[in-house]
């Protein structure tokens, strides 16, 4: 049951509540999902999990973590910006707008925040692969700045205040970033969420970051480091070869959305397409 509902006005205040055991609440699409005020739980042993016992929630709405601003060659996004606001913002890079739109329901996009999407650490997160590929960084309460990848390495990564991404409209921006999602139906859980950042020198891939979710790198989305290494410093291989090396690099397991073999295959195909799309954009 929920014990306390806090409404901090500052990040410091929010951190104090966290220290006494609270959980941050932004849009509510993750934390409140399945929590039923009228208690409609079927009572089946081993069935759906019930709400956590004695939980405090720290509602971040009052912190004003909204909006987007430019800072040098970066764009700084308030962590409580909704995914719909990001999808609608023409000043943001196309990959982020597209990834925000990967949440298939407008209702959910209106509620879900980018900070919440990161902090929820879902394997099939729509934003994390793109953010990792783009080299996104997080500004945390208390002054810490860390990459999205590092944030995921820490079990309780702290309160995200802002998200920094490179501004692809900045003069010094050299690469391209693209994201992809694949699911059986529009609202089904995805079997592919991936992001690629690529820089090329002529035909040669100079810099490459590939991140994928949906079990490709374990329970959390992550970078495909060995794959990046294999593909960097040479021209991009042909599509079939790319699929082969990607399939070998991803390690999804079987679940209700498909067998490991299928999931490897479809990730191979979609990520290969993404790499080719990036190269073609650079050419």
């Amino acid at each position, binding site marked *: 049951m929920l014990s306390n*509902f806090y409404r901090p006005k500052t990040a410091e205040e929010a951190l104090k509540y966290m220290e006494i055991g609270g959980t941050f609440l932004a849009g509510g699409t993750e934390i409140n999902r399945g929590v039923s005020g009228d208690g409609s739980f079927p009572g089946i042993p081993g069935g759906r999990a019930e709400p956590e016992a004695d939980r405090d929630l720290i509602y971040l709405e009052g912190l004003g973590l909204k909006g987007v601003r430019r800072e040098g060659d970066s764009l700084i996004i308030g962590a409580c910006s909704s995914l719909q606001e990001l999808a609608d913002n023409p000043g943001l890079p196309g990959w982020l707008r597209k990834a925000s739109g990967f949440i298939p329901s407008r209702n959910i996009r209106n*509620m879900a925040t980018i900070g919440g999407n990161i902090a929820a650490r879902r394997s099939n997160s729509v934003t994390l692969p793109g953010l990792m590929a783009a080299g996104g960084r997080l500004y945390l309460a208390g002054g810490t700045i860390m990459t999205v990848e590092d944030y995921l390495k820490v079990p309780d990564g702290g309160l995200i205040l802002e998200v920094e991404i490179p501004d692809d409209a900045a003069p010094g921006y050299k690469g391209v970033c693209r994201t992809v999602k694949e699911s059986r139906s529009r609202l089904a859980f995805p079997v592919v969420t991936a992001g690629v950042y690529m820089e090329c020198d002529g035909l040669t891939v100079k810099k490459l970051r590939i991140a994928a979710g949906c079990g490709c790198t374990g329970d959390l989305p992550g970078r495909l480091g060995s794959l990046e290494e294999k593909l960097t410093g040479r021209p991009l291989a042909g599509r079939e070869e790319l699929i082969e090396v990607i399939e070998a690099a991803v390690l999804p397991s079987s679940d209700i959305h498909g067998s490991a073999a299928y999931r490897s295959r479809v990730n191979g195909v979609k990520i290969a397409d993404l790499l080719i799309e990036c190269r073609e954009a650079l050419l």
Partner: protein
Amino acid sequence: MKVKFTLNGKEISIEASAAENGRHLLQRAGIPSVRNSDDSYGFAGSDTILLDGKTVGAGLLLAPMLEGRDVKTVESLSRGRQISEIQQAMMDAGCIQSGYNSPAAALMLYDLLERVSEPLKEDVVDALSGLFNRATGYMQFFDAVDLLVKRRKAPGYKAPIPEYRDKLKVVGKAAPKADVRRMVAGERVYVEDRVDPEACFLKILRSPHAHAKIFSIDTSEALAMEGVVEVFTHKNVPDVYYSQAGQGYPEPSPYDRKLIGAKVRHVGDRVAAVVAETEEAAVKALKLIQVEYEVLPPVMTVEAAAAEDAPLIQGGLQVFEAGAPDDLEEMNRASDPSEGKVIYQFPIGGNPRKNIAASIDGGVGNMEKGFAEADVIVEQEYETSQIQCTPLERHTVYTRLEGERLIIHASTQVPYHLRRITATILGIPESQVRVIKERVGGGYGSKQDILLEELCAYATWITGRPVFQQYSREEEFIACSTRKPMKIRVKAGARKDGKLTAVSMSVRASQGPYGAHALTVPMNGVSKSLPLFDCENFHFDVTTYYTNIPPTGAYQGYGAPKGSFAIQSAMGELAVQLGMDPWEFIHKNMVRKGTVLEIMKCLGEGREGAVAVVGSCGLEGAMDRGRELIEWDRKERSEDPDVKIGKGVCIIQQGSGLPGLDQGNAVLKMLGDGTFVLHSGGADLGTGLDTVCTKIVAEKLNIDPGLVHVISGDTDIAPFDKGAYASSGTFFSGGAALRASERMVERILEEAAKILEEPLSDLSIESPGIVKGKRGEISYRKLAWHTQGGEGSGQIIAPGAFTTNESSIPYGAHFCQVSVNTRTGRINVDKYFALQDCGTPINPEYALGQIYGGVLKSIGHTLYEEMILDEKGRCLTTDLRSYGVPTIGDLPDEFYCELVDVEDEFGPYGAKSVSEISVNGAAPVIANAVYDAVGVRMRSWPFSPERVLTALGKL
């Protein structure tokens, strides 16, 4: 804590706990329109509100998150009884059928039109992306937006809905259903809106095992808990066996269950039921019940059920009310009394000692000769999966006492069967039970079965307390009525010229633990697929096995979608083997008006059948029109070399009720001012049946439909009707309304003749509600005054009963074009054309909506939806998203349904059924199109990308 916010323009302050769900709080605040379809999973959108001007799901909010916010619900769109322009446009476009989340749709479209004055198709898709609509297939939402945009420019613009029958005034013309204004305005029209504040809650402790005996159960701790009123287990429920199938008595389904049994036969089976004064107490009490199980091995497939040493699922005593076999005593010698009984009303080929719930075989002609004459024979097995009806309104019931009478507020398709079954279990006369069918927020077959009403009624009967029960979405999957998985082997032969010579069909169905519809669903798979073809030699056999999967029962289409998939796929395969164009092959072999259907004499659904003759038949028109629409002769090619495009065709049929088995009744009364009330036994489950009846009465009596009011679904007020299943509504219930209207006309003329002192032969009924003679005339108003006055002959009341032995069969042809991505396995439905004949479409816009809805639903069954069970029988897909229902983003790129105009000889004003048939085409037509695209045959649902890649040899 107090939560203060602005609700529909007014500041309110309401006491709430921090954990209270936002939807729940709004309902407490007097807003019924914010509904729960998915237990706050944020999928269905029934809980949509505008929060600070943006659409969100209230079920994902906690009460304190509303503090200081601006909340608007659909109630904000109306001014008194005046609904908004978007709601009116939705009504006029025919968007609203079951209506459960129509308020949510209205809010989403309102929001869209605030943002975009002239939305494009993709804007509408985006606006409704968070809405799950199972009834109407979304297409008419586009029409509604278009209608509103045009009306803003040209007030009075009318929706371009096709109309039929120039000689008729209201039948065949578009008109909003009588209930839709209330639905779209968010009024209280569903069962959950009837619950009194003092009502208790019923919650079920469900089995974690697929197959087990209850070794011991201790409810003492739960009973002692504050707020708990009663706990029921197998020890304190009546020793009465029944079937949950809502079928006419005597049912062809075996009575093989009690309210709560001592043996559990599926994960989710009833173990105990708690009645408590609060929902929280009921849930808490469930955890205090101590149960010890003797776990038995589960039987999960038909092969496992048929195995020599298979565990018996119904190992109890067999009892026959009629037609007991000679060896019954011998069969019962090894029965286990602790497993209960299986009571047959008459033989249906069951043998629980072999896990067989039902079986039958039959045929016409000479199969050996037929196959010997064939130049080409194909033989293949097709498999269909277990799928769920997923009504937006979950199964819900509210029971209470009025004096010594039991009142059941139900969301049911079968009020009269519900009354009968409940009275039987409780051991009371039917006269002591009243069932009030409220508006039904989606049924699709699953509300034909009595899944929770009987237990809730018993709880009220014993405790004397009003009791409310509503399934969770998870319970919808594990303790409901689902579509039976089937394996269907088809052998079909044809001569070189394409003429079919013989077709055999062997069906094995997985029934689940209880025998609801065990015989009739698989039989229906045969009876709605073989008779599409003109062939002299047919044979079929059907065996339904008890298994430990979640229960199965009826689902829109009944057995037809599965039989259709197998037969139409096999015909596609045969055409390929013959080197013949599939359209030509079907066209050569399909039935036509006048074709004698010999096979029907073997397909009587639990009784002896009768040879039928094809009457009105739109197949020819449907085949021609579809060919034209899809440009059948044009081969499409994708620019992407990995994407292959193909086209498919199939033909479909259904029935219009069960001739010789079922009955509809209605009573028409003339009121004091010459207007009319029709008491219809029909159960309108959102399809517009009440409006069908209204139009039939108005047409016959030559009056405005606004002068006719239909009261239906209340067993105290309206006469008996079999209910809404087997595509019977328009044909049977509408037929009864017509019979009552015809009788009313006779009575009106008799009374008018007396008053006008003219012979009957000189009188006629004229518009608007006038009897005209050669010398004089009298209005219905005056007639009512005469008949109901002190010297009158009494109020004019006209009953009408409808029974028939005639089969009026709706037909159709579906065409589609698919693109198959050979690298990802994804199938995209580029084009889908459904051409269907429903006789005279009495409500054309709702007929079309039901076709769109049925087709999209069956595209979902074909491509996405899947109840996945683990080896222990646990369902792993118990929410709508995991399960995979389609939504607006999954519509075919081009989607068009058209009614092929034929007039039936037997239906009211030439009408036949429309809804169920629509789900029969998608699987075979997509399978045939996939074959055309990539040369692989999909023989198992769903055609997931993984299965496509496997079939292509790429996995």
